[in-house]
């Protein structure tokens, strides 16, 4: 029996307005090499100036994972030649990172928990991008110098499932703190996975294989499973020593395999040493006090929802799993509706109707609309069945809730006068049945309600009909 050992390195691109060491904007999708300056192009004589906004975000993250936030941290140069690295060294924090010794809780579906330790989170500058077009390679340095927080876990995860739970929780925290867009497709949340196996009970760590830059949780899970299978097979075939080497592998999603990225390679020597162009990064007491006040995190929100709204643990975890969902829910609640209805209409009705690329952040149906729709059910304006029809329409087109209710003629009649007239008619037309009912045949009450609803063409509020009939039939 084998045990899987997984450690994760996540590069989170921080959403500061300007780059880490210059005042170029960090925005995406600009023309190549326009968001650049002498510093991020590494022209002769240009110097870095540290963007302190990065420290604010590091403090928030350190606080969120219950870590030590170092009031003094240092920058180091990491040397390597690559076209997208203009100075041929990356400014990073090797010796004293800004955040150390954190922890993060993952929750399993069966209700149990596990703590994953986080070794460190350090500040570093991102590289540019190489673009290969046939024989020609181009370099775009718009991204060069964008601030990253590299978050390094301890090798505490024992399955692909645990790894994905850790990543989802980390992703949620980063989004709750709003320190990064954390968009995996756009590369602002990049994951490198370190995987090894060992016989169960063995304490030592075996050869670890790194799988780089996988851009979805699903692929990460798959990549780990495939890599573990490869290692286990090699072990069982007696070829582990030859086949499993410390290397970087790529996940090929079409071939469903991991593949060695390079041939045999000498171990890189990054020749780290302290960056002489920068002073130490110092966090003042004021800065620490200000930025360690962080917004409510997923775990706290979940506990609050359970307590405050009597939500089930499962529903609470679904609603709090992303900051967008939690915010949507809380905005719905502003309409003064019940948490139970809000939960159902958000997680079942709305999400069930969002297809393809649609999600709660880009649908026409914002939280205010859905909240109002639920309110219209609760105040008796429409029936639950009619509300589903309204929602179908709202998802398709950008319309307002009451307008759709009117247009579809779904408003329930709660006007007692009109409904009383209907009930009187039904009673007059069915005198025999009235006698039977009064004689003790209680079941007939449903018949009268049905007839009344039918006569109102379904627009009557069933509650009101009930009350009127009860009174009239005695």
């Amino acid at each position: 029996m084998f045990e899987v050992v997984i450690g994760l390195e996540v590069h989170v691109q921080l959403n500061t307005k300007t780059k880490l060491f210059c005042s170029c904007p960090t925005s995406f999708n600009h023309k190549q090499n326009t968001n650049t300056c002498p510093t991020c192009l590494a022209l002769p004589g240009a110097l870095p100036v540290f963007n302190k906004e990065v420290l604010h975000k590091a403090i928030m993250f350190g606080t969120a994972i219950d870590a030590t936030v170092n009031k003094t941290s240092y920058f180091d140069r990491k040397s390597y030649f690559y076209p997208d690295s203009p100075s041929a060294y990356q400014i990073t924090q090797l010796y004293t990172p800004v955040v150390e010794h954190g922890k993060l809780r993952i929750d399993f579906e069966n209700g149990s928990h596990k703590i994953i330790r986080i070794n460190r989170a350090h500040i570093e500058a991102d590289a540019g991008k190489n673009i290969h077009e046939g024989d020609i390679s181009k370099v775009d340095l718009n991204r060069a110098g964008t601030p990253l927080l590299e978050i390094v876990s301890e090798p505490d995860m024992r399955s692909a499932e645990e790894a994905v739970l850790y990543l989802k929780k980390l992703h949620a925290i980063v989004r709750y703190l709003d320190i990064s867009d954390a968009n995996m497709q756009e590369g602002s949340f990049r994951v490198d996975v370190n995987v090894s196996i060992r016989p169960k009970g063995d304490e030592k760590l075996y050869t670890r294989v790194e799988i780089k830059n996988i851009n979805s949780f699903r692929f990460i899970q798959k990549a780990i499973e495939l890599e573990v299978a490869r290692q286990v097979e090699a072990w069982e075939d007696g070829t582990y020593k030859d086949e499993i080497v410390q290397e970087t592998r790529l996940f090929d999603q079409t071939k469903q395999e991991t593949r060695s990225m390079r041939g045999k390679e000498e171990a890189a020597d990054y020749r780290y040493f302290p960056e002489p162009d920068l002073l130490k990064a110092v966090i003042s007491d004021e800065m620490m006090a200000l930025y360690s006040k962080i917004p409510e995190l997923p775990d706290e929100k979940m506990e609050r929802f359970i307590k405050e709204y009597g939500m089930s643990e499962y529903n609470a975890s679904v609603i709090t799993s992303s900051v967008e969902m939690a915010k949507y829910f809380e905005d719905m609640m502003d309409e003064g509706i019940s948490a139970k209805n809000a939960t159902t209409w958000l997680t079942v009705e709305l999400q069930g109707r969002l297809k393809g690329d649609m999600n709660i952040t880009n649908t026409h149906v914002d939280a205010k609309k859905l909240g109002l729709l639920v309110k219209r059910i609760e105040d008796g304006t429409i029936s639950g069945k009619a509300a589903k029809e309204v929602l179908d329409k709202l998802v398709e087109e950008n319309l307002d809730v009451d307008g759709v209710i009117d247009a579809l003629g779904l408003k329930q009649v709660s006007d007692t006068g009109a409904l009383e007239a209907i009930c009187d008619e039904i009673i007059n037309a069915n005198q025999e049945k009235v006698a039977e009912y009064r004689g003790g045949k209680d079941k007939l009450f449903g018949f009268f309600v049905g007839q009344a609803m039918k006569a109102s063409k379904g627009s009557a509020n069933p509650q009101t009909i009930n009350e009127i009939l009860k009174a009239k039939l005695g």
Partner: protein
Amino acid sequence: MITLKEALKLSSKELEDLKANLASEIAKHPELNAYIDVNNVGSGVPIAVKDNIQVKDWSITSGSKILQGYIAPYNATVIEKMLKAGLSPFGRTNMDEFAMGSTTESSCYGKTLNPHNADCVPGGSSGGSAAAVAAGLAIAALGSDTGGSIRQPASFCGIVGMKPTYGRVSRYGLGAYASSLDQIGPMTQNVEDAAILYDIISGHDEKDSTSADMNDKVSDKLNPARKLRIATLPKYIEHASQDVKDAYSKAIEALKNAGHTIVEKELLDAKYDISAYYITATAEATTNLARYDGIRYGRRAECKDLKELFINSRSEGFGEEVKRRILLGNFVLSSGYYDAYYVKAQKVRHIIKDEYAKVFEDVDLILSPVAPTTANRFGSLSNPIEMYLSDIYTISVNLAGLPALSLPICKSAKGMPVGLQLIAKAYDEQTLFDGALSLEKEINYKG
């Protein structure tokens, strides 16, 4: 040549004539090779600029083939400050490639001659700036000093050269050699001009994180009448030639005559300075020069793939001395050697700083040689180690980050200038200039 102080009073018409005259004089002496080329920015007093200080729209190459074709797109902070103060960058001066050298022989533009003797080096790495001022082809010049690169050529050429306290002058726009040691400084005909130019280029700069948050000025309060306590280093000068020893005695006499108190002190054996300096400087240099990869600017060699692009561009673009220091820097930083070399060198650096601090508890200034000898003849340093050893009197000042000023004292038996330096405590430029002005008056050196 008119002094900087006088030139600052000239009308724009007079400055125009002066510049035209200067340009034609420079053109008349191509053999000196102090200037790489002569361009002008603005209508101010002409100041020659070392080829590693960025001047917008100028070709700035740090004396290296690898930067051929590179046009600087921005001004160094010192250039911005000069322009604001009514000075004009005027002419680009020759230098050792990437400021690595003590003779200006490693420039890709060929050697610069010493105006006092064409068979001798002008010193380096700011040899072009020193020669231009000494030959009367510049009113004043900017140099840069990483291990003596302003003071030593100033001494060899018989002019004044000043290295400010680390952090006094912004390094923004100075093509980096060793970031924790580099400082830009003035090279002038006299001490007062050095103070004036120092005042113009110094001051806090947000673009340089290592810039000190200080803006105090010195030239308006120069006071040569101050009586100071000045340390001499009897043991230290044992390594110097007789010419230098004679100049040292002469300077001590002059300082005594001027009413200063002389006290004898000792510093750590300079062999430690050499090791700490060459480890620190090359470690920083190797990374600072890694950006010259042929990808974005400068000279790109013929190649068939990426690896060749890097290797060929750098092999062809860098000269021998630069390659030697890149290799040395990579060696001292490589894993397994880092602690033994780089970390140890930083400890030594602290010891050197502490040693100076101890001496400065008792004195205002230290009098020290600049170089062990006068300007050597071309090709007379047979190996790199000899050249490195010739830096023994200058590098500890950079390692400790102190201000120092080299000024001419006398001429040697063979008629070559001999300079000495005064060293002050960090940020005490005022005392440095006051003492230097007093010594200059008392010595009354005539070039």
